[in-house]
């Protein structure tokens, strides 16, 4: 058995050597198609970053390309990431046909908020193509931002989720399956968000419920579901949903906005003291920690890899650096974007090691320089991504702090008005009762009694009665004599 394995390895090695030899010969030749052919040879030897270098050179020199080359481009984009092909100038990309370059260019237009151009570029993507779900996922929000017809947008999202679901089923390996599953879920969440923005909150509820608890997106969706319940005036469910973040399973997920939802839900139920307590806790917990985190960011903002290295540190080491760093690092490490970039970085580093073992040749010198540039670019991008997430988190704390202060002022104003009007709120009522829980016949409900159970997460609802009923405290004097 061991002998058989050794023979197979030897055969692969010899094949790889032969492909490399062919590539070296082509590199020194004057053949007009040499860039394209080197790209094929490098793909066969699984050097996808090297292949991307020659593929781009081929596009720059030839512009138009064949369907076989398009297929190769799709593989390069999948293995080495779209980023490896995205540094081509606009005018070159415009000339090339094919789904890969269309996706790269469409994403660039979307980034520039040129939604009409993004749609025009991506609408040619074939429904049988590998990038069809992604293309639909860009087209649908582009239509939404252009204020197009709701049915048209929904159709694009449906096409996206169906195509992505089918590709997830047929995926050759687990990572690819998870990637397409994520696209499918993204399209479903976008449908829910569209319904939310159009004030169709019942539709949004059903759409959000299609996201399973096992999904990576589920903890993030809880916050949006809480807002949706809030909009449906179901403040008890909004409170139950954000209470889920207190579960030990979700301890790394902390959102300042979740605290805000708590405060405003209590405010709407006229439970002013509860609301004020949430606000006070927020100021006590978040303010000093956000200041400490801000200090860490400011001290290291100009470094090239501080934040990226932080993600890979031991938990105890991360906690020493600053508050929230450990939790934020866990969140970031679970993010698909970060993971895709990390896979790309590892592949590029492995490929560089492989290239460094090549025999001396002008092509080796050429591609080594290029791959080192790619690795440096990916690292910088990832470092910036982590720093940006931390900066956004600090900004979010500050923004919510301001909004919380507004709630506090409003409560003080309302309390003052009650005193002036000689009224008081109904205070002697039970804290929670089942009859105050709103639920559909097909909707789960679990009473939250201070314990979290994995199967109950996301289905909690409080049962608080609204305290907005007022009692008159003014005393009338019939005889004009004070009692």
């Amino acid at each position, binding site marked *: 058995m061991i002998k058989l394995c050794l023979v197979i390895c030897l055969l692969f090695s010899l094949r790889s050597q032969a492909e490399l030899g062919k590539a070296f010969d082509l590199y020194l030749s004057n053949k007009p198609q040499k860039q394209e052919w080197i790209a094929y040879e490098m793909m066969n030897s699984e050097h996808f970053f090297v292949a991307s270098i020659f593929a781009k050179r081929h596009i720059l020199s030839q512009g138009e390309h064949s369907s076989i080359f398009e297929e190769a481009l799709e593989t390069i*984009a999948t293995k080495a*990431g*779209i*980023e490896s092909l995205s540094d081509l100038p606009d005018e070159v990309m415009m000339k090339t046909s094919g789904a890969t370059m269309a996706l790269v260019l469409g*994403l660039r237009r*979307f*980034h520039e908020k040129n939604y009409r151009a993004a749609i025009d570029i991506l609408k040619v993507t074939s429904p049988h193509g590998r990038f069809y779900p*992604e293309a639909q*996922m*860009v087209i649908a*929000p582009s239509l*939404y*931002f252009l204020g197009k017809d709701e049915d048209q947008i929904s159709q694009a999202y449906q096409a996206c989720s169906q195509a992505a679901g089918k590709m997830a089923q047929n995926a050759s390996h687990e990572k690819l399956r998870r990637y397409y599953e994520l*696209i499918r879920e*993204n399209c479903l*969440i*976008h449908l829910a*968000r569209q319904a*939310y*923005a159009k004030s169709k909150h019942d539709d949004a509820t059903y759409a959000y419920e299609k996201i399973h608890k096992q999904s990576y997106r589920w903890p993030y969706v809880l916050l*949006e579901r809480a*807002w949706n319940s*809030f*909009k449906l005036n179901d403040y008890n469910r909004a409170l139950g949903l954000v209470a889920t973040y207190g579960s030990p399973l979700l301890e790394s997920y902390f959102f300042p906005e979740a605290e*805000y939802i708590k405060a*405003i839900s209590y*405010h709407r139920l006229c439970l002013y003291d509860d609301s004020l307590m949430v606000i006070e806790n927020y100021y006590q917990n978040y303010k000093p920690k956000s200041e400490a985190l801000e200090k860490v960011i400011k001290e290291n903002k100009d470094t090239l890899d501080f934040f990226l290295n932080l993600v890979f540190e031991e938990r105890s080491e991360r906690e020493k650096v600053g508050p929230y760093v450990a939790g934020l690092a866990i969140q970031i490490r679970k*993010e*698909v*974007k970060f993971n*895709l970039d990390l896979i790309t970085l590892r592949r590029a580093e492995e490929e560089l090691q492989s290239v460094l073992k090549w025999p001396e040749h002008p092509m080796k010198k050429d591609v080594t320089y290029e791959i080192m540039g790619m690795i440096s670019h990916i690292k910088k991008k990832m470092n910036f991504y982590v720093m940006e997430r931390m900066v956004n988190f600090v900004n979010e704390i500050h923004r919510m702090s301001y*909004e919380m202060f*507004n*709630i506090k*002022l*409003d409560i003080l*104003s*309302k309390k003052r*008005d009650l005193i*002036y*009007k000689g009224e008081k709120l109904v205070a002697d009522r039970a804290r929670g009762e089942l009859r105050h829980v709103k639920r559909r016949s097909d909707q789960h409900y679990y009473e939250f009694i201070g314990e979290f159970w994995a199967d109950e997460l996301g289905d909690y609802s409080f049962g608080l009665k609204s305290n907005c009923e007022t009692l008159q405290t003014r005393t009338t004097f019939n005889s*004009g004599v004070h009692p």
Partner: protein
Amino acid sequence: MRLLVIVLFFCQISIAVAAEATRPVKINYQYKKYEHFDLGDLEVQGNLVAPGDLSVKEQGAHLMDRKLFIRANFDGEMRRDILDLR
């Protein structure tokens, strides 16, 4: 002769009057003297009516609702999902 004496007499008078008229008038400014009012001594005509109860006109209390942040959409999150693609 008598007539001449009368005429000269009247001429002298009119010259004296004209001279008096051309002399600059001396103006004496006087500040208003302190005026004292004895309010206790004032009498107002009419009937004296005491309010039976403290009465404040009931008005619809105008509560100034502070504009609190309520999520209108998730557009920012939608854009970020696309930019994080691949």
